[in-house]
């Protein structure tokens, strides 16, 4: 009885598990455990001002097992993939790829405060899965109607300008072997769920 009431001292382990989970889901070798907390990443970041946590802070949170807070942080969504931090990191951490991983995990657990960035990604991915190509008009139209309806008046002259200069495809371009692409993507999705 007494033994069962004692909470297992797993706080450290769960942290390690989250770090491992993030690393395992990152393309390439993340080297996240190599971070020495120097802060070069945040100092190199053009959008650090708009982040809830600098990348350094976020990586410390991941190590500390603060999964919920890390996945709710807007930091990965503010990452512009400019790779400044990646080329400057003295430890060679694949920072941008870790950010992608965290986005994917937050998306999976529906753990984000602003639905605009994941919404955009989902529409984009949906179109690529359907047509095999991205379709700028459909993507922006759907995204703006859903998330930026008040921005539309400002956008109209720009959209008209792009249209009259032949830079907007009215219809989506479809690849021929869509069935083959679907087969590949659904097999990949199954594999992704296994791990």
């Amino acid at each position: 009885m007494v033994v069962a009431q004692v909470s297992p001292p797993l706080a450290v382990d769960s942290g390690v598990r989250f770090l491992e989970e993030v690393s395992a889901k990152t393309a390439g070798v993340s080297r996240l455990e190599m971070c020495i907390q120097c802060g070069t990443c945040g100092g190199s970041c053009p959008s650090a001002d708009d982040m809830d946590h600098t990348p350094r802070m976020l990586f410390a949170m991941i190590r500390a097992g603060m999964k919920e807070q890390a996945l709710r942080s807007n930091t990965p969504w503010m990452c512009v993939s400019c790779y400044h931090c990646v080329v400057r990191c003295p430890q060679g951490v694949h920072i941008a790829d870790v950010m992608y991983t965290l986005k994917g995990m937050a998306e999976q657990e529906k753990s984000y405060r602003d639905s605009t960035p994941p919404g955009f990604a989902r529409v984009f991915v949906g179109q690529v899965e359907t047509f095999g190509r991205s379709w700028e008009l459909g993507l922006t139209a759907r995204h703006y109607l859903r998330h930026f309806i008040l921005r539309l008046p400002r956008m109209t002259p720009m959209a008209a300008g792009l249209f009259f200069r032949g830079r907007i495809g009215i219809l989506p371009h479809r690849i021929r072997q869509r069935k083959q692409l679907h087969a590949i993507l659904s097999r990949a999705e199954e594999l992704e769920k296994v791990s």
Partner: protein
Amino acid sequence: MSRYLYYPGCSMDGSGRAYGESLIPVCEKLGLNLAEIDDWNCCGATEYVGVSLSPAYALIARNLAIAAKSKTDGEPLVAACSACYLNLAKADNYMKERPQLGERVNVALDAGGLHYDPGSVEIRHLLEVIMNDVGLDQVRANVVKPLAGLRVAPYLGCMLPRPDPDHRWKNHERPDDLDQLLAALGADVVDFPLKTECCGGHMTQIAPKVGLELIRRLVDEAEHHLADMMVTVCPMCQINIDAYQGEMNAEFHTKHKMPIVFFTQLMGVAFGLDPKKMGIGRELTDARPALKKIGKEAQPAADPVAPAHRPRPDKRALPMPRMESEATAAAETPAEVAR
């Protein structure tokens, strides 16, 4: 003619149409034969990798598998869009670096009857091919209308020089390849300090305030260096700086009019090709007035103007910390340390 496989990417017949239509004739002039790979699909840009890992890499690898099949003799695969180039190169590298990912991607490709051995296709960007395979001498030999008098700010953006998975760039933050190329066309090249800073990418779509600020920095700096136009290698940079400049002006109450074109468009103009056929005029911030400066006398003393002095603080404003107190504070600190 040396043969290359060509992966255009989705924006080449959409928002980046001027890039697509200018690079083909320019490459022909330079003796590069670009063979578009059959039935290619989107590379997923920066969106798919942030949703699901294995499908994102399987999507990219389908293109690599098609390229590997259509190779006749070790031709490299060339992309002109920076994001496409980086995605292709990253997939190739990560499939090697993480054999587990490579295996998984191949199991997925197998569902479509395809297979890709990482490392079997050499992936390159058009700018790097022109610099290294063609060479500046060959470029100079084709110039019939030197761009003298046109002040250009070379802007590479992020994803071409960084993270550079194949180690093709000597400098990741201030490379001068595009500068050299534009100088070979006879243009007056600005030493643009923000040449590899970010345009914000998809931020204009998901967090406009962040994106517009990044665009403002670039356009401000280009204007500060008295550039007539910016020149880029990436469709994303082009549409952000070109099409969102209006919204940026509205946001910051500025009146910038900084045109931005693709480097292949300027190459075409310098090679004597019809500017209209090079897609000049497709940009929202018109580049034609700037192009009229070509051949005219260069403006004298085109030094960067000093930024205007900050206005003096209002006398009624709160007082700022004064030097004396700072001096006493400094005197106190070492004593504390000694204690």
